[in-house]
């Protein structure tokens, strides 16, 4: 049974002439244990998708089943309970609470579940040990490096032993060394059976995923499975594209989008670099595999 099933999910903001379509009939199904990287330019709907999957937001239309249960009609508190039990969040800017210690930050989700202080601090301590920050328990977030803060955020996401980790650009504010540590930690969790949904602008990070979803203008334009350790073909198309203009120097999803098969020039460039993308099956917008 799929862990996450989205069927024709749309999300609209505003009303009348000012309506913005954030998601347009997106369908996506994620199996337990998958590591899904979601890529796309700014405004493509990645974060909206994550918020809906993470039960922080409701779709305007469509069906969402989490663990086989339809959740889009759940009341607020039922959604909160489902969220704290099944989903852990990791944000780009860490979002640790500044006046709580590292230990208290990690223990916070357990506090909302009603565990005693002793039990939650013990559990938090064990999780911090797991992410290699046992010595930072009584530090405050302002005393941590970016990489450490993000590992604390991951520990916080893990404390309720969730089925899904939702990571919204977790390495966006980190240097390459810290990024690698954080990604390897996520990969370790995934190996342990936790499903990871990762939003990133960095194609290099798709090496850690076994599935890469490309989004544009609120729809999924490509959904590609890949072996761990490999950059998927579309990303390769960008990576090994010869630099021609200043715009081409931007290594990011905006440039990657140009590599999609609808753009003949990029296809030529891809051939020139002999990247040999074998399965550019998407032609225009495609629906995700179910």
């Amino acid at each position: 049974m799929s862990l996450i099933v989205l069927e024709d999910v749309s999300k609209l903001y505003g009303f009348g002439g000012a309506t913005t379509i954030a998601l347009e009939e997106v369908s996506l199904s994620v199996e337990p244990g998958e590591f899904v990287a979601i890529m796309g330019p700014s405004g493509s709907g990645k974060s909206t998708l994550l918020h809906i999957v993470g039960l922080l937001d409701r779709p305007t239309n469509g069906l969402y089943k989490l663990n086989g249960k339809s959740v889009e009609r759940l009341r607020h508190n039922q959604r909160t309970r489902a969220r704290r039990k099944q989903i852990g969040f990791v944000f780009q800017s860490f979002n640790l609470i500044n006046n709580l210690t590292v230990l208290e930050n990690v223990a916070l989700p357990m506090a909302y579940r009603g565990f005693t202080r002793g039990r939650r601090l013990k559990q938090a301590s064990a999780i911090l040990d797991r992410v290699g920050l046992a010595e930072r328990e009584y530090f405050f977030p302002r005393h941590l490096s970016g990489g450490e803060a993000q590992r604390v955020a991951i520990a916080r996401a893990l404390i309720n032993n969730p089925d899904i980790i939702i990571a919204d650009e977790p390495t966006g504010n980190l240097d390459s060394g810290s990024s690698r540590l954080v990604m390897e930690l996520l990969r370790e969790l995934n190996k342990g059976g936790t499903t990871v949904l990762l939003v990133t602008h960095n194609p290099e990070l798709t090496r850690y995923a076994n599935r890469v979803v490309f989004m544009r203008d609120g729809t999924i334009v490509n959904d590609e499975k890949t072996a761990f350790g490999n950059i998927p073909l579309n990303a390769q198309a960008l990576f090994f594209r010869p630099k021609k203009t200043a715009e081409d120097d931007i290594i990011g999803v905006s440039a990657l989008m140009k590599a999609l098969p609808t753009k003949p020039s990029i296809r030529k460039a891809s051939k020139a670099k002999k990247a040999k993308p074998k399965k550019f099956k998407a032609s225009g917008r495609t629906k995700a595999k179910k």
Partner: protein
Amino acid sequence: MFSNNMKLAMQSLKAAKWRSFLTMLGVIIGVFSVVSIVSIGVGIRQQITNQIKQLGADLITVLPGENISTSPSSLLKQVSILPQLGTGSLNQSDLTLVGSTPGVNVAVPMSTITGTVSIDGNNYNNAQVIATTSDFPSIVNKNVQYGQFFQNGDIDPNEAIVGQNVAIQLFKENIPIGKSFQIRDRTFTVEGVFGQFNTSPLSPISDYNNTIFIPYNIGQSMSGNQTQIYEIFAKPNHVDQTSQVASAVNTRLLKAHGGQNNFTVLEQKQNLAIANNTLNTLTALIAAVAAVSLVVGGIGIMNIMLVSVMERTREIGVRKAVGGTNRQILTQFLIEAAMLSLTGGIIGVILSLLADIIIRYYTTLQPTITLPIVLLALGISLLAGVLFGAMPAFKAARKDPVDSLRHE
């Protein structure tokens, strides 16, 4: 979770000390004024009760002027202090009348003698001089501690008895027996010193610790036989006859004064009622000021909590994302507001404790802070925090998690 919220609330208060203090100021002032005034009131009541206990519940006081109006339904209808400021006084015939009223055991005049007290040319202005009779100690249930009061039929014309404060302040010693002083060029010798009298403000009974007593007949001759009696004390034969005797005294005086109600006959319970009346008016006034102060303080708390909710929007988003329900967020902010207000209340109570110590040290008042007052003050401040913190807390609880997480 509750202890966690308490800890968080205290951390928030500490994080912005000055802001928290200024926010709490309204509550501090409100609680401080209420607790201080009520404690002064309680202290005064206690002092009057002690004084009544000492003087005896059967003491009847006759004062010049119409000080109070009574109504059949209550002990006291109206209190006026203006007659006491007037020139009206009682005279010798009033004293005789009171003393001869059936049921009256003893009547004692209290006559003020004007004039400066001096020792070797140095003036002393803090003492009042009262001319009275030898029955004074028995009527106030207080014997002279050192020496003796003037005795009937054996009165030395230059004899004087002093209160304890006079002994210490005028003569700089505790037992100045045999020491002399002058009033209007007449020399008196101290023959006795009273022990400490229980005193009370807001009571028609004078502070006898600051009094020099001289024999009544000497006082009469010093004032050219035009004695101004400012007070007559009387005691009935039996305690349970007090009210009837007071009423009889009143009737007889009214008749003697040609129906003019230009005097007041008071029982001790009415003395207490007079003080209570004054204190209740004062307490009501201060309570109104304190209520305004608490409302202003509450609005301050509401304002600062709204700012706090705005500043911590992202934190609210994170808390919701990690599993905080609306109710849990609401509770957290309510506890914060309540803590802010309660801390203000506690500071207010501590300040009133300090103020009471200072008042006790520098005045004759003896303010008493009781546990019910403290609990009431803290309860009200807690309630103010919860009431005024409710709106910001609801606002925090209803924040959309996605918008909150996007908030910079």
